[in-house]
């Protein structure tokens, strides 16, 4: 995923979560700035597989194996989770 596509998805995700912030392309990923909080999202190196993404804050580097995991971690890091996040619930098969 190239940095512009990553930036667009993260920026849309912030909007979806109701978080006002700024997303810029930086290094090999994006920089997310929300007031005083700065986070970086970078793509993992091939040798770090199965990890695909890193969410980096001043104090922590958190890996994610998929975009699903990255978005979950990012939302948590921003404190933008709802009290009880909705999970996909698939009805019982016939």
């Amino acid at each position, binding site marked *: 995923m190239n940095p512009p596509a990553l930036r667009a998805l993260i920026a849309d995700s912030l909007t*979806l979560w109701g978080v006002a912030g700024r997303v810029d392309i930086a290094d090999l990923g994006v920089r997310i700035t929300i007031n005083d909080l700065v986070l970086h999202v970078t793509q993992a190196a091939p040798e770090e597989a199965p990890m695909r993404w890193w969410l980096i804050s001043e104090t922590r580097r958190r890996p994610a194996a*998929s975009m699903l995991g990255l978005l979950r971690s990012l939302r948590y890091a921003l404190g933008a989770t709802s*009290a009880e996040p*909705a999970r996909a619930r698939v*009805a019982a098969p016939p």
Partner: protein
Amino acid sequence: MIPVSVITGFLGSGKTTLLSAVLRDPAYAGSAVIVNEWGDLGLDHELLETSEENLLGLANGCLCCATRGDLARTLIDLVARRKSGAVTYHRVLIETSGLADPAPILHTLLMDPTIAESHRVEAVVTVVDALLGAETIARHPEAAQQAMLADRLLLSKTDLAPDVAALEAQLAELNPGAPILRAVQGAIPPDMLFAAAARPEALQHWLDVTATQSARHSSGVETISILREDPIPGVVLPLFLEALAEHAGEKLLRIKGIIRVAEAPEKPAVLHGVRHVLHPIQWLEDWPSADRRSRLVLIGQGIPQWWPARLLEALEEEARA
């Protein structure tokens, strides 16, 4: 599997009139009917059950996850009586109260394992008063919600309001894919409302029409469509749906789609969901038309227009890496 359909519509819209007319059709006369406003019901039917409007909220407080315990009990009791031979029916029709949100009802039908093993959801038919519908929808969110979740919209009392163009435009904004039908005193072939809504061609039509309406409407409801020429890796579907539910679940009203899965491109996968509750993926034997592209349509409020497509693209890229 016993087909079960939901007839909904705002107070006074003509649900009971429609139900009475439907039950006069020989093919529908043997239906079990569940209503929750039978105190003033002018319905004479042999197999009439009532269901209280009690909602049992779950701990997470999500309204659409509230289960209709009363409805589940009523249906389970009916099935037991049917098995014992005490009653005979081949279809269930549920008439909601005028202020009901159909989502918890659908949730109950889909999620209760005892009900799901013997019933399949056939259609949600929303009756809209041709005379008062526009004002009702504008003033009452419940009425708009009922229209948004419909598979079929039925304009009643069109003899009293011959000019329904504005109302039809309003309904098309809320639910562009649902065919808008008309009936006076419920006079319409019931198969047009119920059986036809469950056919693959109906999904195809819904997707075709709705996909052309990708826009934010004055009602605040957005229609977002995704079109894919290439098959989608099977592993992506659960990840995409999981992310959709987790991040946009409360903003998502409806999702429908027909997907060309890379591992089985000749058998399309059909997706149906109300909010973050999804029907089991249904596999069709063949495509309903020559168009074999994957199409997914989401109806929601507050979901950025390109977020679902960008998310899907990211997950596809990961699956192919």
